[in-house]
């Protein structure tokens, strides 16, 4: 499937109809889904075709928006009116929302193909922790697509859809984008409304975009960004035209290289090598490479793995069998709660809830939760200081290439280590994009460009320039 901007031009010129495009997408999904498992729920064919026919009517009447008629997918964490929304969990298996999330509504007459697979309640780094089985990396079916928005990344990379929505709490859009060779945009905290998106860790959760090109992600951001009266975490900051001037290059930009990222432990030497190469490329394009320091960044993972479980344990308190899904059979009310949650949650969800309950419990709150909130302040201040002397920061997205399915599931800490370069940015609430930067042994590699809060425009502009340097260096699809 072509990228969104190309498809827009074809739809507007009438060289393809929205219905033909939807049929293309349906066929690609039918041909590849058995191998990939990108979707938890596929939208029924007749519903897809009806939506596509409506989109075509809008195009015929010249009433189309930028996304009208474009086939897309959304992570199964976004509520979709009348379509099952599971959060990748057994506990919500039967949940059919009575309304749609703002982000999905803002996609307008784009044609929804399905709800993508994810780690249960967006907790994980590989999409292996879904109650509906793992998603497979489209470039090597024995490997993970990354997570937690792994279904969305695999669907875009394999051409099942043209773009997809995901969520990013500690790297869940950027890392799967890197693992699947697509562009992953995580905007500033609050830039896109989370109304109707099932909450994981509320001080960190963001809505993001997975697309085949940087321009496509800018186009989608144009549609989604902005204040929403239904989400009080969306500030009244003006929305820019993110696509305009995206090709202005990086000449004269100052791009910071955090010293700590250069010497981080547990990084695949091939990734470190690519990081150095990308620095040279960016410099060759006229940017100035500047060394910066983030003295507290090494504490990011520990901070995150206190704050995330704490907020998760609180947010997931609502799943007790009373209001959604079916309550388990037991004698007393308390036993119904206990049994419903035992049967409904997977092991990683239970671990996080219990770690969170511990960090928030009487006697431990100050030493764990409050301490982590304080270290978060220091990490934010490090980024603020660094971004006063440079325009953007450059970092790898993942410390390693996509790993084998099952390779990291036995040791929770080995899985958490996958988030080393993405979590710090989430703690500071900054915008970042993972850009495809070639391959290592037919596996995609991505690098992140990171900006100050609400600095999406500069991040997109630099990402576009970097993207152009790696065009044609894609891995070969296995499906």
């Amino acid at each position, binding site marked *: 499937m072509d990228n969104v901007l190309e498809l827009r031009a074809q739809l507007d010129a009438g060289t393809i109809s929205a219905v033909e495009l939807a049929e293309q997408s349906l066929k690609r999904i039918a041909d590849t889904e058995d191998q990939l498992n990108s979707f938890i729920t596929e939208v029924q064919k007749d519903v897809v075709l009806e939506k596509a026919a409506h989109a075509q009517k809008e195009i015929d009447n010249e009433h189309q928006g930028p996304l009208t008629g474009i086939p897309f997918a959304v992570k199964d964490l976004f509520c979709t009116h009348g379509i099952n929304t599971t959060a990748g969990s057994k506990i919500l298996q039967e*949940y059919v929302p009575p309304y749609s999330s703002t982000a999905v509504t803002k996609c307008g007459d784009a044609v929804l193909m399905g709800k993508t697979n994810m780690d249960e309640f967006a907790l994980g780094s590989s999409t292996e922790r879904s109650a509906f089985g793992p998603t497979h990396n489209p470039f090597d079916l024995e490997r993970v697509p990354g997570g937690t928005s792994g279904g969305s990344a695999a669907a875009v990379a394999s051409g099942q859809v043209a773009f997809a929505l995901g969520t990013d709490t500690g790297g869940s859009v950027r890392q799967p984008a890197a693992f699947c060779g697509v562009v992953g945009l995580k905007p*500033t905290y609050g830039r896109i409304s989370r109304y109707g998106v099932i909450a994981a860790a509320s001080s960190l959760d963001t809505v993001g975009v997975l697309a085949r090109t940087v321009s496509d992600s800018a186009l989608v951001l144009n549609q989604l960004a902005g204040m929403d009266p239904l989400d009080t*975490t969306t500030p009244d900051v003006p929305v820019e035209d993110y696509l305009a001037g995206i090709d202005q290059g990086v000449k004269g930009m100052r791009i910071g290289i955090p010293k700590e990222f250069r010497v981080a432990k547990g990084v695949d030497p091939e990734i470190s090598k690519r990081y150095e190469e990308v620095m040279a490329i960016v410099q060759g394009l006229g940017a100035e490479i500047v060394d910066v320091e983030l003295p507290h960044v090494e504490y990011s993972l520990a901070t995150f793995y206190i704050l995330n479980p704490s907020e998760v344990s609180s947010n997931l308190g609502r799943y007790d069998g*009373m209001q*959604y899904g079916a309550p388990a059979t037991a004698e007393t*009310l308390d036993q119904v709660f206990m049994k419903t*949650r035992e049967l409904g949650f997977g092991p990683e969800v239970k671990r996080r809830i*219990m770690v969170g309950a511990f960090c928030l419990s009487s006697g431990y709150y100050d030493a764990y939760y409050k301490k982590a*909130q304080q270290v*978060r302040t220091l990490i934010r201040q490090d980024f603020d200081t660094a971004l006063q002397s440079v325009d953007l920061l450059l970092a790898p997205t993942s410390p390693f290439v996509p790993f084998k399915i099952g390779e990291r599931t036995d040791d929770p800490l080995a899985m958490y280590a996958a988030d080393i370069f993405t979590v710090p940015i989430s703690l500071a609430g900054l915008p970042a994009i993972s850009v495809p930067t070639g391959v290592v042994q037919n596996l995609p590699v991505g690098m992140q460009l990171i900006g100050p809060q609400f600095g999406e425009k500069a991040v997109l502009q630099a990402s576009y320039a970097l993207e152009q340097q790696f065009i044609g260096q894609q891995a070969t699809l296995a499906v």
Partner: protein
Amino acid sequence: MKIDNKDVERLAALSKMELTDEEQANIPGELSSILDFVETLNSVNTDNVEPTSQVTGLENVVRSDEHVADYTKEEMISTMPDVDEDGHLSVRAVFTGDSPSN
């Protein structure tokens, strides 16, 4: 921090969550190693550092107290496992012999 079976029992009760036998066997070790890892924060001096709970500086966002809904009552009710004849969510009796308040 070493987490033993008794701690796990307490945390499971706080979380209103039973554990399978396998989870009961694995969780003490897993929680202990996760807590050992996050305790590296103890080496950071945080004297007089304000905690961060919100990153973009918003405070006390309010809206007018008006009913706004883009869903129907019928659809909302359809998501509930058990509803009485007036369309109210039915739950088990709360104040019984086993309730914590007794």
